[in-house]
């Protein structure tokens, strides 16, 4: 697989005789290994799941609009909260993060693709099929209902008897595979494929954030992989990892889940930090204040992020020593986070701040995320957390961090890089409408929830008794949720209208671009850089602009460019895993139809799925594909 990366250096001659395999239409999307197209796939798939998760949120808020509401029944409500959390985190925001990473990272570091284009495609398709599997639960006997944290024994077979939690464990397992693959790919890409002159300390902040995030993924996702395997075995093969009667322990699941789950929070928020660190300097026309301390703070947050998981478990009964240690370690995270916030503020200080839509979202991000951050420090104090834990105060806190932090960051990033991804500027007027409706709706929805929690409303309740002074605040919260929905619809309208306009965005549409992605056409050609650029400092493009140059100095002559071949194998592998997962899940079921029973109960379906996957892997191993070349004549012909 390394040949794709190696042969980017034209000095190494490639074997002749590989002509370009080009597909069109749907086949093009299914077989593509181009990071820019995979980014678009991630964006649409993530957007689809984000929409599903958003509708689930609206249903939840309608149910809670008044006390003793009967809009939803209790079981459906529990399925909705479980799927809302799981969908939003694993299938909604993470793919959109990956969309931006895929679209931007190779361009920002001056590379022609990621290190492993084949794996990149595999990562997307496993994520998509895992997400589809999880959502199939709605039409195949019931969605998971034990919360996105799936605490045992509630998520065990004894208390959750439908296949819901099986869809959760196996769906997330498959989707998680994609995330892990993506993380490894970005680590390798950033380590090995930076343009000449781009040392680590000259990398754009978003590239740093992606690098650190990928490292967290590498260490955190194996934990959830193990946890999900254990839970799957408990449920399907009657193992006893979490069953007290069989010598297991349900608290073990909580540890495994949060050893993954807390770093996951930083997997989500660090990319947002990276985006904000790109948008603010661009629209302040000023370099990022305290670049090296920003890098240091990011690394420190990632490190501390692994040391604090038990703060999710203060009320589990860990004893005072553990509670004290995890309280203090959690509070410490406030320090590097504070460094970041002040550095952003001082980036704008003395600059020329322009409130374009991306920068509006970045400006909204700072106070909103800070509010989520300070409630995080409050939660870190264990004796206070005994009161906060599992109430609406916590719900408010993590929505401030994830929506007020990450989602505002993603909006900033999408508006900022949209012209680079699609060649079209989103409408600024509609973008500003999106911002104001979304952020006002957001604060209406979640600010009041702090008080609901403190007044005694626990989370995950399908309804509540009247006369508890909860009614008005819940009504306000629901109204806010609808306003956020309006913001999302305006964004979709903006995308639709923009897609009908001609693709005429210039290379540097914001005019003050500082990094390499703004030196090439929007959207970039499939090889990104005709000649690999030479990087002479931080904010490479800005540096050239200040020196009076219009373009980057090339680091190589125009030469033949090696490209990876399109392939359907990653898609096939993912289909295989999907079939195997479904087959395994139903392997102990009794069917009315004897043929079905025969196929599933003898693991024939599972075996068939694995055969497709391993068969595809074998094909990949046996038949070398050396890719193809774009010759200099073709490059000049454009």
């Amino acid at each position, binding site marked *: 697989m390394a040949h794709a990366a190696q042969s980017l250096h034209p000095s190494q001659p490639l074997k002749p005789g590989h002509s370009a395999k080009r597909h069109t239409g749907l086949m093009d999307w299914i077989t593509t290994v181009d990071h820019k197209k995979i980014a678009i796939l991630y964006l649409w798939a993530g957007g689809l799941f984000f929409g599903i998760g958003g509708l689930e949120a609206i249903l939840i808020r309608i149910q809670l609009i008044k006390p003793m509401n009967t809009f939803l029944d209790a079981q459906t409500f529990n399925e909705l909260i479980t799927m809302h959390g799981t969908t939003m985190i694993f299938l909604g925001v993470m793919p959109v993060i990956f969309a931006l990473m895929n679209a931007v990272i190779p361009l920002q570091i001056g590379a022609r693709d990621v290190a492993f284009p084949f794996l990149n495609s595999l990562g997307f398709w496993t994520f998509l099929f895992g997400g589809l599997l999880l959502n199939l639960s709605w039409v195949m006997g019931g969605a998971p209902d034990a919360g996105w944290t799936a605490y045992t024994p509630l998520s065990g077979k004894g*208390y959750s008897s439908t296949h819901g939690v099986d869809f959760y464990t196996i769906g997330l397992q498959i989707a998680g595979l994609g995330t892990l693959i993506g993380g490894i790919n970005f680590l390798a890409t950033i380590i090995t494929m930076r343009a000449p002159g781009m040392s680590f300390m000259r990398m754009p902040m978003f590239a740093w954030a992606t690098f650190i995030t990928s490292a967290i993924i590498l260490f955190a996702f194996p934990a959830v992989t193990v946890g999900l395997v254990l839970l799957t075995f408990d449920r399907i093969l009657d193992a006893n990892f979490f069953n007290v009667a069989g010598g297991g322990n349900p608290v073990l699941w909580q540890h495994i889940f949060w050893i993954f789950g807390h770093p996951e929070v930083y997997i989500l928020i660090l990319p947002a930090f990276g985006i904000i660190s790109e948008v603010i300097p661009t629209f302040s026309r000023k370099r990022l204040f305290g670049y090296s301390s920003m890098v240091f703070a990011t690394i420190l947050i990632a490190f501390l992020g692994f040391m604090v998981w038990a703060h999710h478990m203060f*009320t589990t009964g860990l004893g005072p020593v553990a509670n004290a240690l995890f309280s203090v370690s959690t*509070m410490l995270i406030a320090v590097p986070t504070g460094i970041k916030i002040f*550095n952003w503020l*001082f980036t704008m200080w003395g600059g020329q701040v322009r409130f374009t839509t991306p920068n509006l979202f970045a400006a909204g991000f700072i106070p909103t995320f*800070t509010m989520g951050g300070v*409630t995080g420090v409050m939660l870190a104090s264990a004796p206070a957390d005994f009161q906060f834990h599992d109430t609406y105060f916590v719900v408010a806190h993590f929505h401030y961090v994830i929506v007020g932090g990450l989602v505002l960051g993603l909006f900033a990033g999408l508006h900022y890089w949209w012209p680079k991804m699609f060649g079209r500027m989103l409408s600024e007027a509609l973008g500003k409408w999106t911002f104001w409706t979304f952020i006002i709706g957001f604060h209406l929805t979640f600010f009041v929830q702090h008080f609901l929690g403190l007044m005694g409303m626990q989370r995950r309740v399908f309804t509540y008794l009247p*006369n508890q*002074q909860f009614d008005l605040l819940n009504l306000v919260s629901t109204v806010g949720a609808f306003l956020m929905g309006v913001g999302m619809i305006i964004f979709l309208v903006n995308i639709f209208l923009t897609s009908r306009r001609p693709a005429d965005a210039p290379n540097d549409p914001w005019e003050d671009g500082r990094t390499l992605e703004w030196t090439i056409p929007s959207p970039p050609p499939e090889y990104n850089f005709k000649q690999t650029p030479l990087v002479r400092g931080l904010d490479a493009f800005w540096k050239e602009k200040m020196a009076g140059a219009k373009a980057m100095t090339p680091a190589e002559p125009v030469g033949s460019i090696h490209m990876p071949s399109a392939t359907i194998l990653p898609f096939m592998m993912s289909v295989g895993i999907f079939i195997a997962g479904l087959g395994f899940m139903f392997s102990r079921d009794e069917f009315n139809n004897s043929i079905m029973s025969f196929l599933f109960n003898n693991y024939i379906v599972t075996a068939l799925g694995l055969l497709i996957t391993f068969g595809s892997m074998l094909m990949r191993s046996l038949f070398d594909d050396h890719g193809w070349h774009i010759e200099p004549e073709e490059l000049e012909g454009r």
Partner: protein
Amino acid sequence: MTAAFGLLLAGCGREDLSVLRPQGPVAESSYALMKLSIAIMIVVLLVVFSIATYVWIRFRRKKDQNEIPKQVEGSFKLEVLWTVIPLILVVVLAIPTVKVVFAAGNDHSDDKDAIKVKVTGHQYWWEFEYKDYGVTTAQDLIIPTGKHIAFELSTTDVLHSFWVPSLAGKMDTNPDGTVNRFSFSAPNEGVYRGKCAELCGPSHGFMEFKVKSVSGEAFEKWIASMKAPESVMPDDPALAEKFKSQCLSCHAIGSMPASPVAPSLTGIGSREAVAGILLNDDTREDGAPILENLKTWLHDPQSVKPGNKMPNPKDMGLSDEEIDGIAEFLAGYTLE
């Protein structure tokens, strides 16, 4: 400043339910930490908001402003400043936190004067066993004012979390092997609302209970009446037979040994609520009279508390009249 926030927050919520209106020392200590942390955090927010507002207004790009701003690399002094000040703030919050954490670690399990209560969570009801007295009850936890109550928490099914916001923070009920202990006390007489705070199934939101804090004498009197209950049965012998064969197959009453599958019915007529959520209130302000609540519950338990384990009495062969009769009997079954 802390006091000002205290005043501001004290308006929030019911006295018997709100974290912001603590009614006992344990809740007070959590609340004190909250006030300290809120005060620190509001200062932080004010600083961030002020700088942000200033830069947004002062450094907004003006029309025909085209010169290139000075590209500042950073400032070592400022970086040190905003590293050290947050560190100091963290220390200010961490010291009392650690103190209170260890104070909360005193569970009074060895305290001879403490009242020891074993709390067991069930889908979706609470069992309270007074170990030193050999008394078991459900849904209403009766405690004497001023005494430390030493809790031992566990569950027979899924995880629950035992929470009385106005008296103390919550603690999970885990299965055997990871039994939790903690303690709180209530200086004043009153009825406080308790809730389950860990998702435990469809009726998680309805798994409520009450803590009734009474004087020492009243508590002793209650214990005595629980220990030597009158053997009461419905007056009508046919109904009594039905009650015995259908209800008492799961529920315990009077001197019967406590049942692990269903709440004890001893003195149910004196309780604050039926099924934890149908509040008994003759004034109808916050509920309904107990007889009405019992009828609502017994005629269709699933519609009141979805997913609960009690079979529908109608499915067990009880007629509407028999159900009403049992409801009347239970409503009159008080402990006096």
